[in-house]
């Protein structure tokens, strides 16, 4: 398997008037050709900013540390001119807020064809033809008419389909979809997910699907990476994450998934407490303030990702959830003195 994207010890920092925000705190992973990777975590866990930094789209006050390579080429610190040859062409991204992601004063046609003109040097006619193909692929009715319309003339679901079509125009090798269904009606959400599942089959693109909904991941992804406080808590295949969760946070997320049990709705479980303050993250385990199994080591030592089974890893000091005792062999970083004095 060849990696399209290799991320190593990536960190994202934001300078703010009341201190530095540590949004992403050293994550490493690969996205391989044709693979679908799910990134899950609560709001504020750093999912979006992780990929914004890969795309060179951080806000002005943000900076990226570490490395992110597209087919061996370093993206971090790459001059914008060179980056512009990759984004939109090789790597495409769909954003969380579909309602405001299209330029209000430009026709859909222009917004789509300009991508092809830019990256493929296509003429107007060829670009329009290709744009129509893509609109049909994402099942937009009356595609030809849409090209002459403005974003405000289309529904939210339609706009999101257009965003998806636009991202796929150049046949990217990697498609990053940041919560492609938030801000949409439930029925439209289902349609978009359906579409994503189809696209996964027909395009060769590797897909990163960012979501806080484990259900979405279950239907679409091969691998899952569970994020909390800007770190990965657990990574593994969909089966492993769903049926053998090894991290207390993953177990909490799974327990808080709504589901129907024997015809009656269970009372929804929620992980107690609040996501951590990213300006004053605990130096050791970021989940310690909300974890049922928190013990001394969790406060003194940062747990590092380690294999539970090959390909399935967790960042937790526990031996296992079935036998929740501290594992003395668990790899960790001692941060005790700093943590205690901080």
């Amino acid at each position: 398997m060849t990696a399209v994207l290799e991320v190593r010890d990536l960190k994202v920092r934001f300078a703010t008037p009341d201190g530095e925000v540590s949004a992403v705190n050293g994550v490493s992973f690969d996205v391989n050709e044709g693979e679908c990777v799910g990134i899950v975590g609560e709001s504020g866990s750093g999912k979006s900013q992780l990929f914004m930094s890969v795309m060179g789209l951080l806000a002005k006050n943000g900076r990226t540390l570490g490395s992110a390579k597209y087919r061996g080429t370093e993206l971090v610190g790459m001059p914008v001119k060179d980056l512009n040859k990759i984004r939109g062409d090789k790597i495409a991204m769909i954003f969380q807020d579909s309602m405001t992601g299209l330029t209000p004063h430009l026709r859909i046609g222009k917004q789509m064809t300009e991508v092809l003109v830019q990256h493929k040097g296509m003429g107007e006619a060829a670009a329009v033809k290709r744009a129509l193909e893509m609109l049909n692929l994402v099942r937009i009715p009356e595609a030809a008419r849409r090209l002459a319309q403005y974003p405000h003339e289309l529904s939210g679901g339609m706009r999101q389909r257009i965003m998806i079509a636009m991202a796929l125009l150049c046949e990217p090798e990697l498609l990053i979809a940041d919560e492609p269904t938030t801000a949409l009606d439930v029925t439209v959400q289902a349609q978009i997910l359906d579409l994503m599942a189809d696209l996964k089959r027909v395009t060769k693109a590797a897909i990163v699907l960012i979501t806080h909904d484990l259900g979405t991941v279950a239907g679409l992804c091969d691998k899952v990476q569970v994020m909390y406080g800007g770190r990965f808590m657990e990574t593994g295949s969909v089966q492993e994450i769903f049926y053998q969760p090894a991290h207390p946070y993953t177990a909490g997320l799974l327990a808080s998934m709504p589901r129907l049990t024997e015809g009656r709705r269970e009372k929804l479980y929620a992980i107690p407490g609040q996501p951590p303050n990213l300006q004053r993250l605990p130096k050791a385990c970021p989940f310690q303030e909300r974890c049922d199994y928190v013990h001394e080591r969790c406060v003194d030592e940062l747990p590092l990702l380690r294999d539970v089974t090959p390909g399935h890893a967790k960042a937790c000091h526990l031996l296992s959830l079935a036998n929740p005792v501290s594992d003395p062999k668990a790899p960790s970083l001692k941060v005790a003195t700093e943590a205690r004095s901080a």
Partner: protein
Amino acid sequence: MLSYAVRRLLEAIPTLLVIVALSFFLMHSAPGGPFDSERVLPPEIEANLKAAYNLDKPVWQQFTIYLGKALQGDFGPSFTYKDFTVSELILTGLPVSARLGLSAVTLAVLIGCTLGILAAMRQNTKTDYSIMGIAMVGITIPNFVMAPLLTLIFGIYLGWLPVAGLGDGSFRNLVLPVIALALPQIAIVSRLTRGGMIEVLRSNFVRTAHAKGLPEHLIITRHTLRAAMLPVVSYLGPAIAGLVTGSVVIEQIFGLPGIGRYFVQGAINRDYTLVMGTVITYGSLIVLMNLLVDLVYGLMDPRVRYD
């Protein structure tokens, strides 16, 4: 769009009527009258004069007489410039003021927008700070300080340009007044442009454009500028109406025969007809410019609906 424009113009008629009525009654309720400043007249001559100008009638009757004539395009004779009608005065003065004002607006838009865009693209750098610093100065220094200063430097000290007057009517004579008039406008337009640009550059659709790998110049010209200029457009409407109807200070300092001075002189001399004439001119222009702004808005933002 045409029916919208016509409807807006019809809707403006009551607005204008209110403006006319208000200024008429305010004018007449102010103490003093048009013949107060002259030598004391024998009572019977003053009575005759007043009768000739209908000033002996009750104010509301004067108003209906004035309105009736004004609706036919007759704004009456001026009280101070006795040999001219108000229409004549406005028609000779307006072109001078309009030429001055439109030149200043053009300059303000060209330079102001360029500076604003530059400042926004280099936000929080030395370029940005210096442009905004100069703009701040441009806004704070009043016309009556800037104009003599320019005259002193370029007219007298360097001797490059005429100090005052229209001269042979060539553009050379307008350079200094246009610059004096344009400077604060450049400052305001550049600040508005910068603000609009910065807001739009932060928007989600600009982020999408970056994600598409578009080069900077396309992101600015195609995706940012149109939305960013909306505040400038709404400012320019009324501003143009104001500039075109003459700047009292500038016309006075540079000795230009525009209509700006008529308004002030008219008010001081209780030249009722002249004041009313300038008020109506200014009011109509404001109405027209606001309509124009709304139409331009529609061209710039497809979400604007005329209904």
